[in-house]
């Protein structure tokens, strides 16, 4: 899939040049594989990279593993980040223990919405000092955005304390287009495309100037109509499905073309079938999907021309 001359390419290259990349989008669009492919690209270009997932219930809380040279994977979890953050702020371990074990504080930390979000982003923000690149696999649309809103809310709420100062510094970093970028992943389907635009608008309010760039994932090959129309919305044959699918995707993407939204498409790939069907992390780790996506992004020259350079 060559897309040379696509206006999205320079935008995406610039985004990937920044130290911190937020990868957002609706659930199930492939944020995890794409963000992993980008992190892999950085690492293979010799950059010390941290890839972050938030609250993955299938991994250990706070787990940090080195997947390959230069590539670290973190499962960032609210409760762990909360303890780390308060520890950092209070400074005295015995006091910190007293604080985080207090029932009221525990109830507040779990029950009050927003606290999790702010400490999660705070944790990642602190890691900027330790890595050359950070790629974040954000929670799906509304919840990813809510993380930034929480920081803003707490900034209003906690007037004059250290939390407010940190929240302010965090937002300053997240809004700095020299440091942070936003990448939105979508699918060529109605709801994901619509949500992506909504998300872009909301992100522009919270983090003006940080993008976004758009990737449309899993686009089917274009197939001319071969089969007659029918009344039932169910597919009648494999050809019927493929033709309608590609027509529908075309109609969906035309809306973006008409709006002159620059996007890069990534073609659908054959999914791996030989692995444990109920363990997606294993499937993702052991399949070639991340590699395939990395190759596609590399072919589009999104990591620059030469490995080793920046």
């Amino acid at each position, binding site marked *: 899939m060559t897309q040379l001359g696509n206006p999205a390419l320079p935008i995406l290259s610039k985004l990937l040049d920044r130290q911190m990349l937020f990868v957002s989008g609706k659930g199930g669009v492939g944020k995890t594989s794409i963000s992993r492919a980008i992190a892999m690209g950085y690492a293979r270009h010799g950059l010390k990279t941290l890839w972050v997932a938030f609250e993955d219930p299938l991994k250990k809380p706070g787990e940090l593993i080195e997947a390959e040279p230069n590539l670290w994977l973190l499962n960032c979890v609210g409760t762990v980040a909360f303890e780390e953050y308060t520890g950092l702020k209070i400074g005295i371990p015995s006091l910190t223990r007293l604080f985080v074990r*207090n029932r009221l504080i525990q109830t507040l930390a779990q029950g009050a919405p927003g606290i999790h979000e702010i400490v999660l982003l705070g944790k990642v923000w602190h890691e900027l000092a330790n890595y050359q690149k950070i790629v974040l696999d954000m929670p799906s649309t509304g919840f990813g955005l809510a993380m930034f809103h929480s920081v803003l809310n707490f900034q209003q*709420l906690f007037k004059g*304390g250290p939390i407010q100062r940190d929240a302010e510094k965090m937002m300053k970093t997240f809004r700095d287009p020299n440091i942070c970028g936003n990448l939105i992943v979508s699918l060529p389907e109605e709801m994901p495309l619509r949500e992506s635009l909504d998300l872009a608008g909301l992100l522009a309010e919270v983090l003006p100037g940080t993008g976004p760039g758009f990737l449309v994932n899993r686009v089917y090959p274009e197939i001319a109509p071969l089969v007659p129309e029918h009344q*039932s919305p169910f597919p009648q044959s*494999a050809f019927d499905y493929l033709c309608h699918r590609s027509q529908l995707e075309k109609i969906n993407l035309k809306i973006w073309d008409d709006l002159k939204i620059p996007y890069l498409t990534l073609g659908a790939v054959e999914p791996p079938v030989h692995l444990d*069907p*109920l363990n997606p992390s294993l499937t993702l780790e052991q399949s070639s999907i991340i590699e395939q996506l990395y190759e596609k992004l590399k072919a589009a020259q999104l990591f620059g021309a030469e490995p080793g350079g920046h």
Partner: protein
Amino acid sequence: MILTRNVIITCGTGGVGKTTVSAALGVRAAMLGRKALVITIDPAKRLVTSLGLDALGDQATDLTPLIKNACEKLGGTCLGSLDALMPDTKKTLEDFVYAFAPTPAAAEKVLKNPIFSILAKEFSGSNEYMALYRLKTLDEMNYYDTIILDTPPSRHTITFLNTPRVMKQFLEERMVRWLLLPTNRIFSAGLRKALGLLEKLTGAGFVTQMLDLAESLYQIQDIALDTVKKLESLLESEKVGFLMVTAPNPETVPELIHLIESLHQYRFRFEGLVLNRTLSAFKISEDEWAQAHQEVERNRPDLIYGLKILDALQTREKRLIEALRNKLANETGAFYSVLPELVRDVHSVEDLYYVADGLKNTQPI
């Protein structure tokens, strides 16, 4: 299920067609003679537009005439009715506060508290609390035979199931309760220290505002707790069944299994499973393979490429469904239903009629 439960709650991760399935269930309920209602939070625009529901909002809209039309065209009868409703969460929240506060002035005080308004913003991002409150109010009206609640998208659907419990815990938490007693602020040394630290971290205003809000909440605590308990017993009762909607792909199925396990933990009723957007309903025929190969000779490889992806997806799907059924082998009494992926977005109530018809075919897991 439509005939045995008054409330059907559809759960599932994003992008699996939960809203379409919920609407189709509504159509099916109406055809079976029930007075039905679908509550949906964030439907696809094309779905709403195609049903002529652009004005869909906090008040119920009647879809019955459209269903009757579809039945006339495609066969079948519609003996009942179907309403649809999209709750305005901000308004529901205000109603909620006014309903519980002892005086309107007290309600306004709560609504104006900066912590509350921020909490409310955070809450309206998730919507769970308000959707359930709305469900309870509608159920108590005893007007509908069948209420279908299309659950709002959550980061993890589990948050939704956990809602009543978290609220109850919050309201029952004795430490909070005690702290909330404004005249009785004799804290233990540990608590005083914790609050002191909290104040240092958050700045001076927050702790005062929190105690202020706590005081207001204390006034409504008992009545709110009572409501939450009623809600919980409603959800646990025979009246309510939970229907899981999923697309059989490796991104969503593990979460689904986790979700079903949690349902039992919460003592909610796992009624059945809709495997939506399936691709293995049709076989790729020999003819199609042959034709695709011919296209390659004409230098058009797209068709064979498409078929290969489809073939791999079908194989993966079959294995996944097999593994899922094995995993759920203990779920006696639950059913499952398979719906193929549609070739177009739902255009009309006729399309929903077809989906509703597809939901007829259920088998035990």
